[in-house]
Every structure is written in structure tokens, then in C-alpha cells.
């Protein structure tokens, strides 16, 4: 399973740019699916990972599915359809270096209302509320892609400032057979090693591109000219 994912990553067409302090990497897979990632340049944290899949009839997907992070543009209510009200809880994944973390904002109930359990043969997490206000079933795609299972004791929860936080210790480093192969030593890309158990050649491929595309020349030139003007 893990091999399949790494070979998929290997064969994907990758483009990388640095913009606004973020390293943005865009993957296009063989079946036309697109994945875009954004990493903080200083800390190396994964900020956004989003997917765009093709429709059944070959039409290009129009909207991005967020796996990690959230869309920061304000949602406008289109006059036609139906949109979740802003008063609902917002479910966002925001990872740290050592753990997967989810934040459910806008949810005021006390901590004892919530219960988080591992279900579906250790594949899925379920958040339940005893007051029947919120329920969510979700999996961790990173773990799923490499075929790792979840355990109940790796989960911890917290509640503060209207936000419910679930933290799942990142076990990929210890559990995955793949990570026993020594991953690349590039510090900025440590997230890759954490989250996806990349093999070494994928890493070197990406780092190459990172150096190549460090800054697209036209943007560099623009900045220069702008500086000139100021002087």
C-alpha cells in the first residue's frame, strides 16, 4: 500500500514555487487528479494540502477539497443554493510536527460532552456529542495511504475558547515499515518524511525542483524593478 502511494508520488508531475514565505508544491497525478501543498518556509510546517479530482465524465473539478488547512477567502452566499451557516462548527485539520491535530471551532459545549473513538477496524475516528449536536466520522488520509491503523490510546482531546481540539500522536515514524529506510536529511522537507514516508529518491527529486524554482524569474525581476523605483 505504502509502495503504491510512493510510486504514485514518484510518477506525478511536480511544480514548485516560493511565494509569500510559503513553499507551494503542485502535483498532477497520472489520472488527472491534482494535489497542492503549502509549507511554511521558516518552520517547515504543512499549512495546506488540497485536492482537486476529475469528475466521472472527464470534466475538470472546479473546487478544491481541503485535507489540511482551510480556505481563507470569505465564503459568499450564492443567491441560488444552500450553504452551511457560519454559526455551525468549523472542522479544520492543522498538523504539528509530532502529531495530527484537528480543531473544531465554534463549538461551545464542555469537554465531557465529547467522545472520540476509533472505529471501523481501526480506520476511522468518530467524534460524538452526548447532546446530539455534532457528529463526525473521518479518517487520516496520511495513515490510510501508507496502510497504518489507528489506536485509541494515541488520541488526546482538549477544549478551550469555543474550540475542541483532537490530537493524534503521529505514529508513522515508528510504525511504518517504510520509514525504517533512512529518509532524506533535508531539514526543510522534514514534513515529507513525517507525513508521507517518502523514499529517498522522491525527496531528492523534490529538493532539486525546489532549488530550481526557488523564485520564478519574472517575479524576481518585478521585485527588482519595484526596488529601483523606490530608490
Amino acid at each position, binding site marked *: 500500500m505504502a509502495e503504491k502511494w510512493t510510486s504514485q508520488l514518484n510518477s506525478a508531475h511536480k511544480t514548485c514555487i516560493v511565494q509569500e514565505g510559503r513553499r507551494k508544491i503542485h502535483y498532477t497525478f497520472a489520472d488527472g487528479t491534482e494535489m497542492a501543498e503549502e509549507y511554511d518556509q521558516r518552520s517547515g510546517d504543512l499549512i495546506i494540502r488540497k485536492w482537486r479530482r476529475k469528475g466521472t465524465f*472527464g*470534466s475538470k473539478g472546479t473546487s478544491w477539497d481541503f485535507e489540511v488547512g482551510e480556505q481563507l477567502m470569505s465564503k459568499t452566499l450564492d443567491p441560488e443554493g444552500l450553504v452551511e451557516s457560519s454559526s455551525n462548527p468549523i472542522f479544520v485539520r492543522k498538523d504539528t510536527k509530532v502529531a495530527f491535530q484537528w480543531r473544531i471551532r465554534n463549538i461551545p459545549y464542555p469537554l465531557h460532552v465529547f467522545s472520540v473513538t476509533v472505529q471501523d477496524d481501526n480506520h476511522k475516528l468518530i467524534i460524538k456529542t452526548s447532546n446530539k449536536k455534532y457528529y463526525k466520522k473521518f479518517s487520516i488520509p496520511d495513515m490510510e495511504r501508507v496502510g497504518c491503523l489507528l489506536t485509541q490510546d494515541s488520541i488526546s482531546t482538549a477544549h478551550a475558547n469555543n474550540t475542541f481540539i483532537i490530537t493524534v500522536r503521529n505514529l508513522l515514524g515508528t510504525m511504518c515499515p517504510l520509514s525504517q529506510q533512512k529518509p532524506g536529511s533535508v531539514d526543510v522537507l522534514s514534513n515529507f518524511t513525517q507525513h508521507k514516508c517518502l523514499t529517498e529518491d522522491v525527496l531528492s527529486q523534490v529538493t532539486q525542483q525546489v532549488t530550481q524554482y526557488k523564485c520564478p524569474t519574472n517575479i524576481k525581476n518585478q521585485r527588482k524593478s519595484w526596488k529601483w523605483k523606490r530608490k
Partner: protein
Amino acid sequence: MAAPTVEKVQEVREVTRIERIGAHSHIRGLGLDDALDARNVSQGMVGQVDARRAAGVILEMIKEGKIAGRACLIAGHPGTGKTAIAMAMAQALGTDTPFTSIAGSEIFSLEMSKTEALTQAFRKSIGVRIKEETEIIEGEVVEIQIDRPATGTGAKVGKLTLKTTEMETIYDLGQKMIESLTKEKVQAGDIITIDKATGKITKLGRSFTRARDYDAMGAQTKFVQCPEGELQKRKEVVHTVTLHEIDVINSRTQGFLALFSGDTGEIKSEVREQINSKVAEWREEGKAEIVPGVLFVDEVHMLDIECFSFLNRALEDDMAPILIMATNRGITRIRGTNYQSPHGIPIDLLDRLLIIATTPYDEKEIKQILKIRCEEEDVEMTDDALTVLTKIGMETSLRYAIQLITVASLVCRKRKGSEVDVDDIKRVYSLFLDESRSTQFLKEYQEEFMFNEMSGTAQSMETS
């Protein structure tokens, strides 16, 4: 909490669409029994027993879905129900089988070549039944609240609260959603599903917990359990799309939007080939199923020789639909040539056709048809008037008689009568000429019309 919500929904004026009455809106099917024998009067069809039985056999062939590229021709005098039979076939096939209806002259356009228009019509008539995953929202309505702006005009806003046994979510509603919610008469306590992509709302029933809200309820009220788990689910649905729709989605960058604007232009043959191979692949994997439909070409004598030779070729394709054509011409010139041929169709194409003939109606049948049309157009008529109208129908044409129904009812309403009487029929008969009387009139008063002074030169000029 439930009571005020119900009131709010009912406040909004009900929007019931009035369907316009068309020439064939009374037809609901071919009117055949299980043994494919035609009942004399059934499902809006009258007479033409042989033609209808033949159409029924063709229908069976289409329903089997195995044979591609067959064609049949419905030939007969004007006003003998050719289009009616085709419409009846479309009705009998149901909504899941694609049925495309075009008129022969429709393909002559400046923006598109004739063969492109025909190809598109062909591909519109072939469906692909495929499973697709869509997101649906399924839950029990807790509260529905629609606010109208204080000024009376402007967009309405609303809120909908849905719940499952485990959770509750509030949705903001847009204009269109409010409309469809009111049309479906959704109220608190209903269990509904909303297709997220299309916005289609389906009412599944009422929640068991609301079973005691009212003492009396309709017999068809269904009680369902409140759904479990998450409100938003991914569900596999099976639906039928036509090959043409897939073509359009793939042919342009703006994708499916072109389907709605109608501006599809010409589609490259490479795109079509790609899609054909893709569909074949799906079929082999068992993901999709081909649903051959029906292409109906009315007034087929309007096609020219190039179209006919294209049809010859296109019918041999294994993805071809069943082609039904209709014509009211006898032996006439094939468009685009100087050759005469039966029905204006080349012999080589005629050879591939199964021909169904329609015959003129007899008096009893005409009376029956007029009766059905009276019902359809909501006109009350006395028996005597109907007999007179039937006689008019026999002597002039069925279409003329049908047209007199509505005008007669208008005359009747002017004199504040409730039923159309013989006098009304007589009055409209004298007011409006039929085709033969008009010809007669022209023959008598030809000289008085314009440009008739130099009849000799006019005749010689006309030949071009």
C-alpha cells in the same frame, strides 16, 4: 415550535405551473395491450390500429436495447397521426431512454455543418447509464424559516435546520432553494434529501416522532425513521447521460456550462473518438451500460442527398440509435438532386427502412379525436355541435376541425353560453376559411389581387 413554521411556509404563494396545451399533449402512450394489440381508443390514441401495432413491435425492439442502427419510416397523409405515433413511442419509453425529436429543416444552420448537426442529434439519442458518487444531505427538518424583506421586493433569505439522530446543522438558504422547498411543501418533521450538486430536493416522508402531530393525515403519508450518523453522505447514484453531454463536457474549457448556454459549436472528431473508447472501456469494466435511444426526424423529405448518404453510413455504426422518420410526401424530388424517388428518400436508404403506413381516419375516429381534444382544451360541447364539427372534419381536414374547437369556445363565451352549440360552430366556420374554400376563393378572385395585371409575364418570370 412546529406550528409557526408551518404557517410561514404556507404564507408563500403556491407556484403551480400551468402547462400549455400543445398539439399532442393528450397523448400518453401507444395504447397497446400486453399482446401488442392496439385498443381502439386508449391513452389518447384513436384508430390507426395497424400502424400502432407496428410501432409497438419497434418499441419492443428498442426496449431490448440489443439491436442498433435500425430505422423505420412512418409515411402517410397529412394529419393522420404520424407525429402522434412518434410522440406516443417517446411517452411509452419513459424518461430514462433518450428520445430526441428534430425536424428535417432544423439541421440547416449557418453555424454548423449539416452532418455535424446530424451527428449531434445521433449522439443525443444514445444514453450511458453510469454510477456516480454524489454528495447528499439527508436529515429531518427541525425548523424552516423564510424571511421576506420588509419592502416586499428583493431576495428572500431563509434558514433550514436539519438533524440526524446524532447531529444538527443550520443551513443558509438561497432564493432558488427557498422556491424549491416551498414547491415541495417541506415543513418541520419531514425527512428530506438534498442533492448537493444539483440542489434537487426529495421528500422521503415524515418522521416517526411526529406521527402524533395531527389526528388526520393523507393516506399516502409515509413515516420514516430519522436518519443516523452524519448529515452529509456520499452516495452512489445511477443516472443516464447522453453521449452528446459527455462530448460537450470534454470539448471545451468552460465545460458543462456550454450545455446550458446551448453554444456548443462543432465538436472535434478526436474528442468523440476519445469518448467512444472511454465509454467502451467503462462498459468492459462493468461501470457503465449503453442505453440506445430513439432519434425522430420529422419531415424527413427536407433532408438533402448528402444527409441521406450520411445516414446510410451512420446507421452502420454499432453505437447508432433507432432512427424513426416521418414524411407526408409521395413520389417527389430528392432534395439536392433532380431525381424522383418515393417519399423523397433515395432507394438505397429506403431499402434499409421498415415502413409503417398511416391511413386516413373514418368518421367515428374523427369524432373520437375531436372529443379527446375538447377534453384536453377544456371545452364543453353539445352532441349536435360535435356531430357538425365531425362533418366539417370529414369534408375539410382534421386539423382545421381541431382548430375550430378553441375559437368556437371563445365565441360561445362571448355570448355568455356554457356549452359550445351548433350555432357557434357555424359562426366560426363562416369566419375562418379552410384550405379548400380559400383556394376556391383565390380561383374566383385571382384577378383582383396584386401583381396580377401582367399574368403572362409573371408566369414566364417564375421559372428559375
